[in-house]
């Protein structure tokens, strides 16, 4: 199969949101920091392709999708479309561009103005782009509604969203998206709010539309099963980065990134209508405002090695989980020896712990290690030395793995040799 030409070419795109610190915080000049919702993504969308973006909540999928329409401002990087860079376009250029790139939203009930009829809602897309004649608009609206399977059209034209079912509303949203004849649809979880019974129908409709209108899709989802059914290529996202990207078959047959493996284990159900992530990797998605050092997946990674970016906060998590399994008496004794964990709140690679004597702290750490010798954190500990009333734990320096070629896919993980000449380490 000859490779199709690139339609959208995203290079090192970052979208950061400033956190609004409280008024007090701003007064005392405290920097509230930023959320790195999208943090250095490079990807291309080819003509006629369905590109899937898969990841847990908060991985930046929606923000990336909104950035493709210029709805979320890019902090850095470029988005090439038709030879132009979307990130440097003026507002009116962006508005014109939206005839070519359109969006389908997750919640069809929220995406339609409650005080507009179906005909008005779909027709408004034409109206804002200067189609004055209401007769002409009506014609195009009817055509679009027929395409999305809302027939007999006359029955729907003057209905309000509240009179329609979820599936019908999503069809209206699709009609509004295609009525201007776009080339790309960004579909942000288009089926996740719908009834099980209509999910497959809407996906099938989207495939039909792609066929008939020559569309390309960016399909955003947190559900791998529907992605497997729908996508040509899949990008797995984690904390604003792409950690693995490749052809759908290859990703499913041979997942390489530990996060992808975990996601696949969690959702073994091939039926797109049923799969729900059941058993995601241990721990929670870290705060995107202060991401982990090194590989941002390392606190949850079962395969992590020494250079994955181990740091003070991981030790804190380890101690805290350890204590949840202790009796109150044991906890009191151990926490007295270890002292406050506040020193472990920052991303440091060399930390001091303990106030009850070096030996006491050392023996607690040894005990934790003996209980679970396979805990990946220990692979990252370079040295434990006596330091005053406690010990100093030194971690191996971490590396932030860039995407590299491995088999048929690109993966961002140190377990795969980085021999690509490309040095586009995002960030």
């Amino acid at each position, binding site marked *: 199969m000859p490779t199709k030409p690139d339609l959208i070419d995203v290079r090192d795109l970052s979208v950061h949101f400033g956190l609004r610190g409280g008024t007090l915080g701003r007064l005392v000049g405290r920097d509230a920091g930023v959320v790195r919702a999208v943090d250095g993504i490079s990807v291309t969308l080819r003509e006629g392709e369905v590109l899937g973006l898969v990841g847990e909540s908060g991985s930046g999928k929606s923000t990336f999708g909104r950035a493709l*329409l210029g*709805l979320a401002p890019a902090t850095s990087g470029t988005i090439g479309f038709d030879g132009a860079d979307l990130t440097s376009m003026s507002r009116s250029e*962006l*508005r*014109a*561009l*939206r*005839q070519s790139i*359109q*969006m389908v*939203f997750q*919640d069809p009930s*929220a*995406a*339609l*103005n*409650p*005080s*507009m*009829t179906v005909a008005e809602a779909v027709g*408004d*897309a034409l109206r*804002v*782009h200067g189609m004055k004649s209401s007769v002409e608009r009506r014609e195009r609206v009817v055509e679009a509604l027929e395409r999305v399977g809302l027939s007999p059209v006359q029955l729907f034209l*003057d209905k309000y969203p509240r009179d329609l*079912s*979820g*599936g*019908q509303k999503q069809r209206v*949203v699709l009609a*509004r998206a295609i009525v*201007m004849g776009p080339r790309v649809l960004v579909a942000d979880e288009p089926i996740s709010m719908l*009834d099980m*019974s*209509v999910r497959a129908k809407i996906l099938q409709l989207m495939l039909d539309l792609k066929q008939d209108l020559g569309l390309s899709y960016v399909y955003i989802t947190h559900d791998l099963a529907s992605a497997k059914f729908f996508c040509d290529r899949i990008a797995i996202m984690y904390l604003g980065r792409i950690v693995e990207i490749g052809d759908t078959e290859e990703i499913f047959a041979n997942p390489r990134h530990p996060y992808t493996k975990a996601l696949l284990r969690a959702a073994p159900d091939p039926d797109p209508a049923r799969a729900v992530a059941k058993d995601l990797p241990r721990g929670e998605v870290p705060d995107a405002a202060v991401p982990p050092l090194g590989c941002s997946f390392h606190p949850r990674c079962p395969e992590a090695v020494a250079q994955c970016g181990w740091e003070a906060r991981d030790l804190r998590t380890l101690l805290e989980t350890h204590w949840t399994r202790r009796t109150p008496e044991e906890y009191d004794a151990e926490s007295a020896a270890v002292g406050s964990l506040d020193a472990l709140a920052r991303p440091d690679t060399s930390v001091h712990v303990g106030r009850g004597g070096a030996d006491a702290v050392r023996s607690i750490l040894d005990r934790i290690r003996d209980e679970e010798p396979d805990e990946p954190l220990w692979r990252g500990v370079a040295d434990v030395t006596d330091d005053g009333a406690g010990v100093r734990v030194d971690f191996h320096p971490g590396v932030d793995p860039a995407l590299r070629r491995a088999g048929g896919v690109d993966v961002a993980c140190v377990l795969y040799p980085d021999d690509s000449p490309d040095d586009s380490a995002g960030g």
Partner: protein
Amino acid sequence: MAALRRVLRALATPFTQTAGLGRWMLVIGLVITGIFVLLAIFAPWIAPYGFAQASADGVDFPKAGAPSGEHWFGTDRLLFDVMSRTIWGARTAIEVVILSILICVVIGVPLGLVSGYYGGWLDRVLLLVMDALFAFPSFLLAIVFSFLLTDLFGGSVLAVAMSLSAIYIPQYYRVVRNTTVSAKEATYVEAARAIGAKDGVIMRRYLFGNVIQSVPVIGTLNAADAILTLAGLGFLGLGIQSTDAAEWGHDLNRALADAGAGVWWTGLYPGLAIVLLVTGLTLVGEGLNETLNPTLRKRRLLPVVMTTREDR
């Protein structure tokens, strides 16, 4: 066709969705208000004489004449027929109220929309100004404005309506601004942006229809207050003069001197008119409030219709 059905449905909602007390308040309020509106519209035909008519067929009316077959509500010291003035007074009151609501909507709603949509310094400045206006004692504000505006426009209905608007604009502004602030976060606004709509279009076609819904309630609730303020201004001798239009407050002011002389009819009827209309409007306002305010609304139970899956 569809628009007509929409309007009819909107008009019927208050009745279909209220029950018990709320509905009765609304009905009684509407009846009372309706009577005054009819009086206002048909004043020239209903009132036996003009509001500034002191004679008929070349014969002067009696001075402060007691109620009689000729003059059911009697006459006042300026020889005017009290019944005619009371009826014509309804016209003035309704005119002023409608005009001032119009001014409020035309100024308050766009200001609220723009302020809530754009936010930033514009929003903060407008909020400050409106809050200051709102915090000012409202009657005092009306007095100040009617002094200023009567200088400009004379003691006309327009001038009085404008000075009343100054009191109520902050309320319209605030309600519209606050609903806009929350409505602009809705996905359908983002969707409008996604199809390429300009800010103006988003405000006009997407936000306006959804933030305007609280305006009728503020309108009716303020209408009662506006009648009282109008009468208050008239009572102080400000605003509309006797020969320009019949105004109840102004008539009350002139009736003050009569009360001691046993002439009760010059004060009773305009006073009664004020009380009735204010009651009517308050009932409508409260009834509407109860209907349109979802936290208070008690919907009647509707039968649940199950659709089969295939129908979806």
